[in-house]
């Protein structure tokens, strides 16, 4: 899907640091990207690469001692970082919604599903309880929960993991937001349920014209879903572009390494080639390109910071990108 009009979200040079006793921990380091209207963007990276923190930074939900130290987050042209807490609250859940990773933990165990939905409606719209309840019921029906009217009175423990994630999606949909940030929403689910939820979210995003940031470590999921992909490593976006291009002709050695570590992508009989070493601790990142210690193509120049290169709709940070015939 191509985006028309101005982007919904523009993240400009955002850095989120955690102030620890051992110094500032740069969880997100000078990250910039845009999300167009109705666009589905996949944000991919290993654990600890800063992809979830990027999502929380947008919503202003980074827990202390973390905080967004610099940059701009323009949502429909307005800088979210300059908003007062109360103004920010009117954006959260209303214009930007979020779906979390573990559906077993995101719903309050002692409040009924109905209560947790109705409060979300009433937090933003002045409507009667009956009206809020009706809207909640409709949202549950929309995400494919059978007999939604009765299920409103049920408690989270009476739902399976997949059903709870559907409830979380229904809550995210209550106000038909412009943007949904989905933080690994299928990771904790069975494979069969995963594909159902994937399909459901893709359908609903298209139906309501919502943009979607899909945070995941699963390249396969992102390939099936997203229009564009951003690969994050050690707090930075190292490569970004159209899904097909990035996955078939990766320019950055890290992206290439990720691809050859996926069992399904490697031809049968050939060994998997895991990336050697571990992602660096955010406290002791190597200078220059953070990937150079693990990179097969690294040379002396990699101790300096690679600039972002933009070529043919692709962005990457590397001195030694892979060259493909077209490039």
């Amino acid at each position: 899907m191509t985006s028309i009009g101005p982007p919904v979200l523009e993240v400009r040079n955002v850095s989120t640091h955690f102030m620890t006793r051992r110094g500032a921990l740069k969880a997100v380091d000078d990250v910039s990207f845009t999300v167009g209207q109705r666009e589905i963007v996949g944000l991919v990276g290993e654990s600890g690469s800063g992809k979830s923190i990027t999502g929380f930074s947008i919503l202003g939900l980074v827990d202390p001692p973390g905080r967004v130290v610099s940059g701009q987050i323009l949502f429909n042209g307005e800088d979210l970082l300059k908003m007062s807490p109360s103004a920010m609250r009117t954006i959260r859940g209303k214009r930007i919604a979020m779906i979390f990773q573990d559906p077993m933990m995101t719903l309050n165990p002692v409040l009924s599903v109905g209560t947790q939905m109705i409060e979300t409606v009433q937090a933003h719209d002045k409507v009667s309880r009956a009206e809020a309840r009706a809207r909640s019921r409709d949202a549950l029906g929309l995400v494919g929960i059978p007999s939604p009217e009765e299920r409103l009175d049920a408690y989270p423990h009476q739902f399976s993991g997949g059903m709870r994630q559907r409830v979380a999606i229904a809550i995210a949909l209550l106000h038909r937001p412009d943007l949904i940030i989905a933080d690994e929403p299928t990771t904790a689910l069975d494979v069969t349920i995963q594909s159902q939820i994937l399909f459901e979210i893709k359908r609903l995003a298209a139906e309501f014209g919502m943009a979607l940031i899909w945070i995941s470590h699963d390249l396969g999921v992102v390939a099936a879903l997203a229009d564009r992909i951003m690969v994050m490593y050690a707090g930075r976006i190292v490569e970004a572009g159209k899904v097909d291009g990035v996955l078939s002709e990766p320019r950055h050695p890290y992206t290439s390494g990720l691809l050859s570590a996926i069992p399904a992508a490697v031809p049968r009989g050939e060994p998997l080639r895991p990336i050697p070493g571990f992602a660096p601790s955010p406290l002791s990142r190597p200078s220059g390109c953070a990937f150079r210690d693990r990179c097969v193509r690294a040379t002396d120049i990699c101790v300096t910071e690679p600039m972002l290169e933009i070529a043919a709709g692709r962005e990457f940070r590397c001195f030694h990108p892979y060259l493909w015939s077209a490039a």
Partner: protein
Amino acid sequence: MTVFVIRRFLQSIAVLVVTAVIVFLGIYAIGDPAEMLISPDASQAERAQVVASLGLDKPLWEQFFTFTWNALHGDLGRSFVFNRPSIALIFERLPATLELTLTGLVFAILLGIPLGLLSGLKPNSATDEVIMTGSIFGFSLPSFWQGMMLIMIFSVWLGWLPSTGRGPVGEFLGLHSSLFTLDGLKHLILPAINLSLFKLSLVIRLTRTGVRETMPLDFVKFARAKGISERRIVFVHVFKNILIPLITVIGLELGSMLAFAVVTETIFAWPGIGKLLIDSIMRLDRPVVVAYLLVIVSLFIFINFVVDVLYSLVDPRVRLGDAS
């Protein structure tokens, strides 16, 4: 729910029977009440006559059998000292103790929960430090010492509040309590505070721990992501989760407050059952001691039952676990 109630009821009877045996044997071992009751210059014949009239000449098993038989008919024996049914003595004084403990408990809850919330929401702040330090004092200074200090400060030095006894009793909606007269209230304040200081510290710490454990959970963050106000997150989302451990502990503590109001009642000469117990133990007034302990055990059982019911009301997982 019905199965739960029946099972609970049968358990309670077993507990009562076991307590009765232990208490009866224990009190038998303490000493011979005849020594306390009969004047030293009584003749041998008089002595034998008194012992026989109290049934103390019978073998132990027969005394226990008589006691159980009478207990089943609602008679827990007559006080040797007052020559009145011991159960009547206890019920006469129970309201004073109930009034004292309930006031103390309400005080501990009304003050403890807000202070605990304040502490837990701003951990390691100056407010938190002050509250936590205060609660350490509440925990560690002995109750009798706190009581004496209260008397010294508020009765002796400042002269604001009376230090002993229960004030006049007023009537309101058929209830008799010193809560309903000004002077009665004045008498109640110091002992109630004394009794509640320890519980107050406990409630503060429980609430604080609960807040600190619940705030980082995903559902709190999700509630924020939904745009719910911080106020509602604290008072609905977090508070309802904290309520589960709070109810459990407060319930148990109410029982122990009733049973161990002894110290406070002694210091403030409060005419409750705690003071009655101490007096009765001193005089080896067996029937009163036995009746007291059985009443307390029954109260404990009842409170625990109420706690379990409340628990299932607050926690939906418990509610449904029972039905299936």
